[in-house]
């Protein structure tokens, strides 16, 4: 669900967490779960690198400029954090083979959108192009999709593919 929502917003690469089971438990631990309505409040909590809560507010429409200023103020107070590192990214020529009416292929496509990999990861739909299917069989020995072809290696299983992409392309 979160992958679809993130994709609908143009792609969300930072973690979208499922506070699903037990329902709202994490939100409740932060005091932002509305048990009478069975849903989480629209709220903001900032935890600094020492694990201390520095900001907590219930909000209507978020004032992102004000929030950015608060984040900057918290960051200024911590000068001993390691520098941010850029993600490694994908090897040149990375290609994912997908097929139509395939939930696993859809999951990989959503990850590509959420990680903004449109320019780094080529998509080849084997359901729509027999040449791609032939390519896939030659590379992987089978016609099963989705398959990620990267740096001369085959990565199969959508969970493995999505994890591989996130590990190399997420700033987390």
């Amino acid at each position: 669900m979160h992958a679809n929502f993130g994709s609908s917003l143009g792609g969300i690469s930072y973690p979208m967490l499922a506070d699903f089971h037990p329902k709202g438990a994490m939100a409740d631990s932060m005091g932002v779960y509305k048990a009478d309505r069975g849903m989480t409040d629209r709220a903001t909590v900032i935890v600094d690198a020492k694990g201390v809560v520095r900001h907590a507010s219930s909000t209507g429409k978020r004032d992102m400029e004000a929030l950015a200023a608060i984040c900057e103020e918290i960051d200024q107070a911590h000068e001993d954090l390691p520098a941010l590192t850029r993600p490694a990214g994908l090897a040149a020529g990375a290609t994912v083979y997908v097929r139509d009416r395939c939930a696993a292929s859809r999951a990989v496509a959503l990850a590509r959108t959420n990680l903004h990999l449109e320019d780094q990861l080529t998509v080849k739909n084997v359901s729509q192009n027999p040449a791609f299917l032939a390519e896939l069989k030659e590379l992987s020995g089978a016609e099963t999709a989705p398959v990620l072809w990267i740096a001369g290696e085959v990565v199969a299983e959508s969970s493995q593919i999505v994890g591989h992409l996130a590990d190399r392309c997420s700033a987390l």
Partner: protein
Amino acid sequence: MIEIGSDAPDFSLVDQFGRKITLSQFRGQKHVLLLFYPLDFTPT
């Protein structure tokens, strides 16, 4: 609402890429911004 200045309770939840994200993994590394919202496909 959790009290400012208190220690945040740790948690481990799965993200949209299937990764387990734990609050304490950021200790000493990064600050964490938690944006809570009621439902997907509604204003965040």
